[in-house]
């Protein structure tokens, strides 16, 4: 049980990779990349979690309460921005490639061979 959340991250990562490898549509593929990326936030947040602890925000709670790790949360925040930025760029590439090739299937656009 104590490794289950970590295993979830591993699972999501591998599932995303499978999606990328087997994809037949660049938009589908881009979404799979973002699934892959979501595994990194899951892993980060799972590592910083503590049993019976609250969020690292001290609005009204006494400072003596046990809190979860704030650093992994800030890393996950950074990671989310990176993810969206990259995904938006990938979609734009896919759109342009479609303009040029008339297809979104990676098999039909392998012009760069050898």
């Amino acid at each position, binding site marked *: *049980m104590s490794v289950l*959340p970590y295993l979830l991250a591993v699972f*999501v990562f591998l599932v995303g990779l499978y*999606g990328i490898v087997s994809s037949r549509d660049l938009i589908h593929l881009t979404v799979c990349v973002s*699934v892959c990326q979501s595994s990194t936030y899951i892993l980060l947040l799972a590592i910083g979690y503590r049993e019976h602890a609250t969020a690292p925000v001290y609005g009204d709670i006494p400072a003596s309460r046990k809190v*979860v790790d704030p650093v992994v949360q800030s890393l996950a925040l950074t990671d989310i921005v990176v993810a969206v930025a990259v995904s938006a760029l990938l979609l734009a590439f896919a759109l342009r490639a479609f303009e040029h090739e008339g297809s979104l299937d990676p098999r039909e656009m392998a012009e760069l061979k050898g």
Partner: protein
Amino acid sequence: MVPLQSIALLFVALGALLVVLVRDVVRQALILSLYGFALVVLFLVFQAPDVALSELVVSAVAYPLVVVAAIARIAAHRKRRGE
């Protein structure tokens, strides 16, 4: 681990699997949004409200919308080519 966490974990695992396995991009965008919501719940039970808030806006709403917009553009383009 509390039951709520287990349920959230299960939903995320299922969501990820569905997003990848659904090959129709419009449906995929819809499921992506649901997957985003599952992640939001997971982050809340992981005591990460800041991350959950960002995830809610970005991955559950904004990103799927951008994907749909891209799909619509492709459809429009295809239609024009077909005409």
